[in-house]
């Protein structure tokens, strides 16, 4: 496969987005969008296959498109194919295709379905652009497109004020991170003079090794750059403290949550760290990455314990898992983090789609307290959901188990405190997932309308994903760990394996023990403690600090503006006072009444006098002529 064809992978969905934006018929639009994504999926798989053949340190395949050339500086677009991008593209298109198909069923009753697929395709194009970009600027541009598409999709049901607010919040919070990213790009550009990741001449960003010798803001350039890029990653991947948008983003249609807020976009932040790993390594930012990830994992897991909204639990779970990926990259290297990213994409997409199926089956009910006993009416969904749950809680020999195991092993080897935090987060994961399942599946139905199973177009993707959720880890483990940069720890210490299995099983057991035999939904939930339920008051804290500060700024600027207006009015007032002074003292008194008005009156009088002779009376004219002559002569005589 030539690298030029690589460009087709993101361009096909883009084309679909462009075409579907003019379509009205939802069904046709969906078919078009799905077809486009399937083709690019096939292309991605071919590319992936090719990339699989490369060794980890092979030169990547490049395809560069000059975008701008100004003053001797070239700013290029470009695509790159190496194992990392290949695998990521394959995952995005594959999961994406399944979710597209699922959405065709999920959204079939929405009259704006065509628009939905337009946005989805736009998102896919942007995401694939992010994945394949060989230039930081293209990466960022696509990253922003992804952000817009996410915004549009979250607020897709924009008649709901919550959805609109959530979309705005997502956009703005990620934009905070993006600003860091943007400054990072500017700094990279300043320091290296290029924006390409790799170039044929081997002077791309990731191929320069003297970044540490450069200084910026008093630190080494690599440190500052990687920190700024990490800010972008934190925003996009919902790491603390910028995670607040992700749970709210669940206001969007469920396929959106699955595609964007579980499998792909939120992983883009992790992917960014993975792509620019050499910078992080050079800048010594990996411990920070690991710690941020670990804290995120723990805090989000705690919050997930206290939630009742089916999708919100999954959302916090996603935040938590993203934190674990960061731990993986920060503590154990790219391969480990990416491995978890890939497996997580499958099982979290599965969970979300399952949740979507449940929500649809329960007539748009999202509160787990009003569910229950769904195992019987929705068998396929239940099976798929349980598969996803097992993978998420890292039940031994599911895909989640393998990837999480690697993370824990890496953390154990490099950063033991992080290891214990991550382990605790894993335990909590098992607990909240068990809690959720206990609420949803056994027992009796607590809702009003009888639940029903979803149509095949939705369940088939679920089952396909289930297979991957269970099996992918075992299948891909060896090759992924080998191909991606960064060597995992082998063999795993016994402690790690023991802890890993213990937290998974122990968590499940704990959850089972707590919730078994309880009148679920009627009595208070023992784990939904106030801080968890209220999400550790993050939103409130932001409102009280950043929000206040922001309002303060606006008020200050408004007041300053008012002050300026006041100064202007004052100046005008003073000027007019001075003017009035002059007008009264000088103008009216001196000039008007004495000179101007007086003169005018006199002139008018004289005019009247003078016009009196102009009466058509000819002798009068003659007399005046004579008078004039007399005066002239008198003048002449006098002058002599």
């Amino acid at each position, binding site marked *: 496969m030539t690298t030029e064809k690589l460009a087709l992978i993101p361009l096909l969905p883009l084309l679909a987005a462009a075409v579907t934006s003019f379509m009205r018929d939802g069904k046709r639009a969906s078919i078009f969008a799905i077809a486009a994504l399937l083709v690019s999926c096939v292309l991605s798989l071919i590319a992936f296959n090719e990339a699989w053949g490369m060794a980890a340190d092979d030169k990547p395949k490049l395809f560069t498109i000059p975008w701008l*050339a100004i003053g001797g500086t070239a700013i290029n677009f470009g695509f790159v194919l190496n194992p990392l991008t290949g695998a990521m593209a394959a995952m995005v298109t594959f999961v994406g295709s399944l979710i597209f198909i699922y959405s065709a069923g999920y959204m079939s009753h929405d009259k704006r379905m065509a628009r939905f697929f337009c946005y989805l395709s736009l998102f896919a194009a942007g995401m694939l652009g992010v994945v394949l970009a060989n230039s930081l600027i293209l990466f960022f541009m696509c990253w922003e497109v992804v952000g817009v598409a996410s915004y549009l999709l979250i607020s897709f049901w924009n008649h709901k004020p919550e959805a609109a607010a959530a979309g*705005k919040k997502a956009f703005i919070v990620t934009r905070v991170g993006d600003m860091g990213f943007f*400054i990072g790009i500017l700094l990279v550009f300043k320091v290296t003079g290029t924006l390409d990741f790799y170039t044929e001449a081997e002077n791309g960003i990731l191929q320069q090794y003297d970044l540490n010798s450069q200084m910026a803001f008093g630190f080494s350039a690599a440190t500052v750059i990687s920190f700024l890029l990490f800010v972008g990653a934190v925003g996009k991947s919902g790491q603390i403290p910028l995670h607040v948008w992700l749970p709210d983003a669940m206001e969007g249609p469920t396929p959106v949550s699955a595609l964007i807020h579980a499998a792909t976009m939120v992983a883009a932040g992790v992917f960014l760290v993975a792509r620019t790993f050499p910078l992080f390594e050079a800048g010594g930012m990996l411990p920070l990455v690991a710690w941020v990830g670990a804290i995120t994992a723990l805090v989000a897991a705690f919050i997930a314990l206290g939630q009742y909204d089916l999708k919100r639990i999954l959302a916090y779970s996603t935040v938590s898992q993203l934190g674990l990926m960061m731990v993986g990259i920060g503590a154990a290297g790219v391969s480990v983090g990416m491995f978890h990213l890939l497996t997580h994409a499958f099982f979290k997409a599965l969970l979300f789609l399952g949740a979507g199926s449940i929500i649809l089956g329960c007539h748009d009910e999202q509160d787990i307290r009003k569910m229950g006993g769904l195992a019987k009416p929705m068998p396929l969904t239940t099976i798929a959901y349980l598969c996803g749950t097992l993978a998420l809680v890292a039940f031994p020999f599911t895909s989640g188990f393998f990837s999480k195991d690697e993370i824990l092993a890496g953390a154990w080897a490099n950063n033991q405190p992080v290891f214990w935090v991550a382990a605790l987060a894993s335990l909590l994961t098992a607990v909240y997932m068990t809690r959720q399942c206990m609420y949803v599946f056994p027992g009796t139905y607590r809702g009003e309308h009888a639940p029903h199973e979803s149509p095949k177009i939705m369940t088939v993707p679920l089952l396909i994903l289930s297979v991957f959720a269970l099996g992918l880890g075992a299948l891909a483990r060896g090759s992924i760990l080998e191909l991606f940069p960064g060597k995992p720890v082998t063999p795993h210490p016994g402690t790690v394996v023991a802890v890993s299995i213990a937290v998974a099983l122990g968590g499940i057991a704990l959850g089972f023990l707590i919730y078994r035999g309880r009148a679920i939904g009627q009595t208070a939930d023992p784990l939904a403690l106030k801080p968890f339920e209220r999400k550790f008051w993050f939103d409130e804290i932001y409102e009280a600090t950043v929000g206040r500060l922001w309002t303060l700024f606006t008020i200050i600027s408004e007041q300053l503006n008012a002050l300026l207006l006041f100064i202007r009015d004052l100046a005008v007032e003073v000027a007019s006072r001075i003017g009035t002074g002059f007008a009264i003292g000088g103008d009216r008194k001196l000039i008007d009444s004495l000179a101007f008005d007086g003169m005018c009156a006199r002139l008018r009088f004289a005019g009247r006098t003078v016009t009196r002779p102009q009466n058509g009376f000819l002798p009068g004219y003659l007399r005046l002529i004579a008078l004039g002559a007399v005066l002239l002569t008198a003048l002449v005589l006098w002058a002599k």
Partner: protein
Amino acid sequence: MITALTLAPLVAAILILAMPTQRARAVAMAGALVSFALTAWLLLQFDGKLTEVKVSWIEDLGIDYHVGLDGTNALVLLLAALLAPIAVWISWGHSDRPKTYFALLSLQFTGLFGTFTALNFFHWFIYWELALVPAFFLIKLFGKSEDRHKAAINFVLFTVLGSVAMLLGFIFLYQATDSFNFIKLPGVIEEKNVEVSSLIFVAILAGLWVKVPLAPLHIWQAPVYAAAPTPVVILLTGVMSKMGVYGLLRLIVPIFPDQLSQHADMLLGFALLTILWGAFLALRQTDLKKLLAFSSLNHVAYCVLGIGALGVATTGLKIEGAHELARQGVILQMFAHGLSAAGLFYLVGLLEQRAGHRNRDGFGGLCSVTPRFAAMFYILTFCSLGLPFLAGFAAEFLIFSGSFAVAPKVTAMATLGLLATAVFLMTMLQRVFTGPVNEQHQSMPDLTRNEILILTPILILVFWAGIYPKTWLAFSQTMP
């Protein structure tokens, strides 16, 4: 050719006064189209070199009639020539004193074209003021709101005060150099080793400062934008606010390089102040036109940021030609902002026309009532907040990359402006287009075919300049 395109609207204005009333708009349109066609023709042949026409005029004073087209003005001229017919088109149904209206509009086109093409201060200044006078009358006579008189007076007072300062500055400069020629002045100053006083620089800067406008002389802007009729706002924000930036590029940068580098910090500081101030002002503003006016303030200030960066030395940088990046970014930003702001003001004008008000919080849910309108509005808003693949991003990226290379701290703080822009524009979208549908506007009509046609060229250019800005940057390159 350049003269013809400048004077075509003037001829149209005279013809309008001579012809029957019902022909007025057609004549105005013809004038604008002729200018546009000539501009397009000129630009097609444009090769980056200075194309000039120079005729001796008042020889004793060294004043020539000197017009020209080069990398600095090609794109703004195109912008003006593009928005002129659009402005006429938008006012096609104008029925209040059409003769006066269209004549003034045409007169203003001449002022704008003249300002962008003149290369001799003498007649440049005439055009500069000519652009102002019709705007004043258009606002005063045809504005909608109550405070249009006050706004118009404010507008004129501020800009005239600035112009007077600039005029004085140029007269002093002339005394030192005996030249009014923009192209030759830098050479003359160097050759004669003229000690240009900072006062001259500040005086000329002041005139441009008001026009841009930069804080704290921006207070005339929002009331004027709010009061002026839509086509006039489009010209004001699309083209007239670019006159100041263009002036900076044409006068300050080449003629006063030393002073610029001396005062670059000051300029950067004020640009930053304006960016943040404008953004934060827009946050609490509920009058949509004023909101967009503050957003304009913020966007045009990015241009000034880039210009300030031109004053900082670039020694020892890895980016080759950081100045060039900033300079071309500034020009592209003028183009991009001209397009997006014109489009947005047009849409807000339509909204006001349909709803009878323009209070941000008085709408809601328009997405489902008027989907096409919403789509257009969203795209232009996205362009305005600098989303990639739309014109705004390409320009802002160039400016930021150029200015970050030389002034990283200020630029980094300026990105806060980008963030604030996102916040207020998103809030605007949220309040106007999403949420439950406001009962009053349940049956608001969507865009008509004609309105879509007006917006189409703007949208195409917004995308074109965002995806493939090379085409447009070719016009802003300077060849020796």
